[in-house]
């Protein structure tokens, strides 16, 4: 099959790239999603929590289309905030960053509202901003321009009109006017991609806006990732918004029903072997997007033997998931060690579960649940949250064992257990054998672990914050801005990281020096200049670089660092 035909065969795995028709045509209507639809359309603030690819965008878009078409449903406004990271650099250089972000969010809501009103064939209510021209289309153009400028870090004096006038109350009033105009009784605000994981400051501000937009007639709904979303001090999940999980239990009946329906509706032109479908279901770990990707990979390699294809797609997917998880390090460098330790921890879980299943080969039970004694250690909790966000651990409800012992239960991503051959009795690849194992009942108790420090070195769970560049003192907190020892300003994370990531070819050295360093030493980035203990010897490795030249190079690099971080 030609992969170029993907679109027609339904292999596009992101709801963002599907047309409205495709979205509706391929939508799987099962009770599990009906509950989510209900949550999205009913009154009240809701937060939809699910990892990447669990169907958050898809569900929001379905809810949006539904509301658009049915007159007695609320007025739905759909906004995606996936471009928030364009505003990230502002945080380290513009004191007005949070204010600009605040207005950016409000402007995006207004523009989405106008879009909905126009789709309903109505003329949008006038924006009536003070000081700005009274012609509505001119004002709308300005709001659009402001959004674009904020994303490109362009600043102009007229922005202050927008910043001063577009307030929460203004948006509430505008939405209410639009609602009346369209003859609807309520509004649901579908705020997609609201996790804003890279920028804690924005995330906190966002949920402040979310909370403030909630009125009797306006019900905000946001989609976020599980685990690491920070709601800030003024927002209380459960109290300010009802959270609802969108992540199929990987081996639950609902997910099985979903897969069957999905194949019938979207992939009816493809012949899929039932056994393979079943295996891919487990391997996708309750994640619809992962299932579509795996199926696509499988289809692309149909000519090879089932065993080869399956092993290949498992390996590729495992590598991808691992890389995706470890990539958080690049984005949130302060968590580097925690992320690395988290991976070790995950590997340990896989090892333990695999061993446990080997022991159960000849029984009629399997073991895929690990139970960790809840000792409320914040750093361990944070590590686990990153694994949950990446979709590597699925959290089941906690269980009690005895009086005071509560265990948090998790299932590790099953595809890694496939890779470890946790469910294969024989050396070969036997689909039926693996499936027989997977369909067994779970062992009565989870694999209990009382002391995580026996699995990993928990002392490593510290933040990696750069020390003071003036006196070398370690930082005391993540939010610290000035050194408590010498009083100097601390360098912001972002610029520090950017500097460390500069590669050799970007350094102010001669072409000859660059080539020599790149080809004949282990130095790759500025970071290496600081982390390799004996940098002088390392630099003298190439022929032609002696003590003097090495010194000049080091000085040039240090000067660059100084300038970069000044």
């Amino acid at each position, binding site marked *: 099959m030609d992969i170029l035909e993907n679109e027609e065969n339904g292999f596009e795995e992101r709801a963002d790239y599907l047309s409205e028709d495709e979205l509706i045509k391929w939508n799987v209507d099962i009770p599990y999603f009906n509950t989510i639809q209900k949550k999205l359309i009913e009154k009240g603030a809701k937060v939809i929590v699910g990892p990447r690819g669990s169907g958050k965008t898809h569900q929001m878009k379905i809810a949006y289309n539904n509301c658009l078409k049915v007159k007695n449903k609320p007025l739905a406004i759909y906004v995606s905030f996936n471009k928030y990271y364009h505003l990230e650099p502002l945080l380290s250089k*513009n*004191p*007005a960053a949070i204010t600009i972000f605040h207005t950016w969010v409000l402007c995006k809501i207004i523009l989405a509202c106008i879009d909905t009103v126009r789709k309903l064939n109505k003329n949008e209510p006038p924006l009536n901003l003070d000081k700005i021209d009274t012609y509505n289309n001119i004002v709308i153009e300005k709001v659009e321009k402001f959004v674009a400028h904020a994303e490109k870090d362009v*600043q102009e004096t007229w922005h*202050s009109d927008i*910043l001063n006038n577009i307030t929460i109350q203004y948006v509430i009033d505008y939405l209410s006017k639009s609602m009346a105009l369209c003859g609807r009784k309520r509004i649901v605000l579908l705020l997609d991609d609201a996790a804003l994981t890279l920028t804690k400051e924005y995330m906190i501000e966002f949920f402040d806006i979310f909370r403030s937009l909630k009125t009797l007639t306006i019900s905000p709904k946001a989609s976020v990732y599980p685990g690491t979303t920070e709601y800030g001090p003024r927002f209380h999940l459960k109290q300010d918004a009802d959270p609802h999980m969108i992540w199929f239990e990987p081996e639950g009946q609902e997910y099985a029903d979903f897969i069957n329906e999905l194949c019938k509706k979207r992939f009816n032109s493809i012949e899929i072997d039932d056994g393979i479908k079943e295996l891919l279901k487990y391997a996708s770990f309750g994640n619809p997007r992962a299932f579509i990707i795996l199926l696509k990979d499988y289809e692309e390699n149909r000519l090879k033997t089932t065993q080869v294809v399956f092993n290949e797609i498992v390996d590729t997917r495992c590598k991808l998931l691992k890389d995706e998880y470890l990539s958080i390090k690049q984005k949130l460098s302060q968590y580097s060690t925690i992320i690395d330790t988290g991976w070790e921890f995950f590997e340990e879980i896989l090892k333990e579960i695999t061993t446990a299943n080997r022991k159960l080969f000849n029984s009629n039970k399997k073991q895929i649940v690990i139970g960790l004694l809840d000792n409320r250690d914040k750093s361990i909790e944070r590590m686990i949250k990153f694994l949950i966000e990446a979709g590597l651990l699925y959290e089941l409800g906690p269980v009690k064992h005895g009086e005071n012992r509560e265990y948090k239960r998790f299932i590790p991503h099953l595809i890694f257990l496939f890779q470890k051959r946790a469910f294969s009795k024989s050396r070969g690849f036997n689909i039926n054998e693996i499936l027989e194992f997977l369909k067994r009942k779970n062992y009565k108790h989870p694999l209990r672990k009382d002391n995580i420090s026996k699995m990993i070195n928990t002392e490593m769970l510290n933040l990696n914050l750069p020390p003071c560049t003036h006196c070398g003192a370690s930082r005391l907190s993540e*939010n610290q801005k000035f050194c*408590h020892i010498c009083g*100097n300003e601390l360098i912001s994370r972002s610029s520090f990281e950017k500097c460390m990531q500069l590669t050799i070819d970007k350094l102010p050295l001669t072409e000859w020096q660059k080539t020599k360093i790149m080809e004949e030493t282990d130095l790759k980035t500025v970071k290496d200049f600081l982390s390799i203990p004996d940098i002088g010897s390392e630099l003298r490795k190439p022929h032609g670089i002696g003590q003097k030249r090495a010194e000049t190079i080091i000085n040039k690099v240090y000067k660059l660092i100084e300038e970069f971080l*000044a």
Partner: protein
Amino acid sequence: MGNFKYQISPIIPTSNFNTIGIFDDQYIHSTNSALDDFTEKRRALFILLSPYQHNITQVPYELTNMVLLGCVSAVESYIRKILRNIINVDKSSSVKCAKETIKYGAVLYHSDKNMLPEALLEGYSFANGNNIKEAVKKFTGINCESTEINVVLKEFSKICQLRHCIIHRFSLLGLDNAMLLGIANHKQYIEKPIKIDFDHLNEIVQVCENVVKVINNHLFCEVLERTYYEKTEIWYSDFRRDKKIFKRYYSLFKDSSVNIDEKLIYKEFIKTMNNKYGKDYPFRQNCC
């Protein structure tokens, strides 16, 4: 019958308190820029926390409150110094101030003529964002209008409310302050003490720092461009000839913590001016 008199507490007399001797008459004003002075003050204040480095959560709130007061004071001090310096160096500003009146005593007692502009600012308090804007406008004629300035001054005004509570009410939140901070979110804190922890303090100090930096950037650009536009200085677009004048202005605003060649800033300035007004603008005859 005499009035009722009873000493609840015994009083120790301070026999002869006077303020002579508590000022340092040997002090010489630094020639640093106003921004560098501010940074130095801010640094000195923050170091007060160093004894608590191993137990930063134990910093007494009295101390964090004092650092806040010090920082606001450092901002005020920056505004005074930068305005004084601008008035002394920039011709347009000094012409603008020529119409203002000052106390006769200022002329009589200020030994240093460069200090005279301080007399203009005598009745001003800069512990409020709007006052800063107004004073800048009044004494230099420069408008402080930009998103950045508005945001930082708005935040600074909130800190000034806290300062007010600390100075006048030993850190309890007063009703007026609560109203200015937003009564809806603050009503539950009325008459409750301010408790600034280490993270909060960092943020407060950052706001003060931002006020100073944003205003410093703004004034530097505005003052310099005006000298070109109003031709109060003659710019030859040649660093060798313009160096002296450029340095005179640049030194008022310089940030020593930033490592940058001033020639680069000069080039950027001349390039922008040439593009905006034309290269021959400084030598063009004004036509009426």
